[in-house]
């Protein structure tokens, strides 16, 4: 099968693989296709993690006219490791802002849920990162997806060879699932954004730590299959106030970008966030493939609102093996 692995970068074959993807046969069910005629993505400046964030997040949510009145909203931040520098994980202040914003928008309940990929000690991760204090002060419920009850769901695209994925009940019961990744480069996937963040929806008690089964099935392949299979309405808020460049997702360097990215189409959101990092999304294998059926990748199919991308674009460093990502076709 045409691989989407990191070795494609190393062999220099990536550009051919990704850019010629349109000529390959479809590997997804009709039910997986989700491509509106155009997708909207908002880029909103946010320079600091301060008390203005809730207002900014609410403005971003309202740009999309999201109706969350009396709905259950599940916020899925990206918590991987404790990191004293505060660069690895979605900033707790942004999670607090999103809790407040969705409550003000009328949500019946806002749940924060994650299944950290490396750590089983969720309590430590929450306390050390400051998220525990946020949850306590906001009286918000947290669900550790690594230990949540899970149900097998038939896979709707066919990149990993897995027939079904076990998805947590908390996610399956959500009216709206909000992916809240950090804006980061990633040493296996190229970038880790709203789509890669969905790895954390799969219970580690079943898939292992660090979701080992999915690594063997292929990281890019797993990203596409997970995102095509999640049967829940989606929204994304990318934490790009401070991102990470270089050897992400845990050992890269801090990069101030001063931005939040909002949108309903995860492919379009990630493509826009990649462009903000001066990375060509068409050269990121999982984005190139997802752009065929899960959302829009081409910039002429993305209506970009908020700030113009050129005003906030930053030159994110990547590992040498990912240099092709920086060459815009």
């Amino acid at each position, binding site marked *: 099968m045409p691989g989407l692995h990191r070795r494609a970068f190393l062999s220099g074959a990536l550009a051919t693989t990704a850019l010629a993807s349109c000529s390959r046969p479809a590997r997804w069910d009709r039910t997986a296709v989700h491509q509106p005629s155009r997708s909207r993505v908002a880029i909103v400046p946010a320079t600091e993690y301060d008390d203005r964030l809730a207002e900014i997040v609410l403005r971003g949510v309202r740009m999309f006219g999201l109706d969350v009145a009396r709905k259950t909203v599940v916020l899925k931040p990206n918590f991987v490791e404790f990191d004293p520098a505060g660069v690895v994980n979605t900033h707790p202040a942004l999670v607090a802002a999103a809790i407040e914003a969705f409550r003000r928008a009328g949500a019946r309940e806002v749940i924060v849920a994650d299944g950290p990929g490396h750590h089983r000690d969720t309590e430590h991760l929450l306390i050390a990162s400051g998220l525990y204090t946020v949850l306590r002060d906001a009286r918000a419920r*947290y669900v550790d997806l690594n230990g949540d009850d899970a149900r097998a769901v038939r896979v709707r695209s066919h990149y990993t060879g897995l027939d079904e994925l076990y998805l947590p009940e908390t996610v399956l019961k959500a009216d709206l699932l909000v992916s809240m990744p950090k804006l980061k480069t990633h040493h296996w996937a190229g970038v880790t954004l709203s789509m890669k963040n969905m790895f954390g929806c799969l219970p580690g008690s079943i898939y292992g730590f660090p979701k*080992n*089964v999915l690594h*063997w099935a292929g990281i890019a392949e797993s990203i596409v299959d997970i995102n095509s299979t999640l049967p829940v309405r989606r929204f994304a808020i990318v934490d790009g106030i401070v991102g990470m460049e270089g050897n992400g997702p845990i050992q890269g360097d801090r990069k101030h970008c001063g931005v939040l990215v909002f949108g309903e189409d995860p492919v379009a959101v990630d493509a826009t966030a990649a462009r903000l990092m001066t990375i060509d999304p068409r050269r990121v294998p999982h984005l190139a493939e997802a752009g065929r059926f899960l959302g829009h990748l081409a910039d002429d199919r993305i209506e970009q609102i908020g700030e113009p991308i050129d005003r906030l674009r930053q030159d994110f460093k990547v590992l040498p093996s990912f240099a092709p990502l920086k060459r815009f076709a």
Partner: protein
Amino acid sequence: MIGEALAMLHAAQNRDGGWPTYHGRASNTECTSLATLALARLDAGERAAADRGVRWLAACQNADGSWPLQRDTRTPSWTTALATLTLGSIDREPSSAGRGARWLLRQQPRTPGVLASVLYRVAPHARVVELDPELRGWSWTSGATSFVEPTAYALLALKRSRSRLAGVEVGARIEEAERMIYDRMCRDGGWNYGNSRVLGAELWPYADVTALTLLSLADHRDRGENERSLAALQRMLADVDSGLALSWAALCLAAYGQDAAPVLARLRRAWTRTHFLADTRSIALAVLAMSDGARAVAP
């Protein structure tokens, strides 16, 4: 604290006799094993709940000797080691424990293949993840590679079960798994999920995994790696306040003959702050640590 923790454990036990990770969810093998292990060593009132846990474990065992994560999944899982450890430790259902141990011995985790092995022999530092790919421990799921935590559980279970495995070669499997664990130790001691060095960068250890792993290697306490890892654990504990990490640490220190009292005092304080997020696993381990449980798990 222990009274409150016991009350939470009783409240969380499902009608089927098993325990879920969180109150009201489905029972699973991990939490049922740990809660049963913790309660079976206490007085008669607690042992009644443990008896129901034992029955849940016996009923959920697969025909091949493994345990699934949950009753309705049936797929063999890493939790087999915990169920085997529990039944072996409390001396119940010896036949089940023996079949669990034999299933563990039959497991062969995936290895990255011939090319990876050759590359490791020729240029070990050229691999993106620097570890000896041929050393086998145990994996989280069938068909996956070895990782530290499931290997530590399997070592604890097999070292407990040796006496029930007469005529079965156990030593070589244990010895290879121990070599795998030492191979994956972080530079300054301690363990994380299983990678100590990736793309040339050192990764850092976790307190909970380090304490658990040291416990599984307590029969090698004089080895230099163990001493470095104990020192690393003490350093890590300065920054960790979770029920899971403090409980494993208290069990570990007791098994190594060190003073666990300061860690137990911190465990009590941590309980008042978070109640360990009502996670059955942490609560059960805390009860075990508070009731001199190291002898129930350490080799």
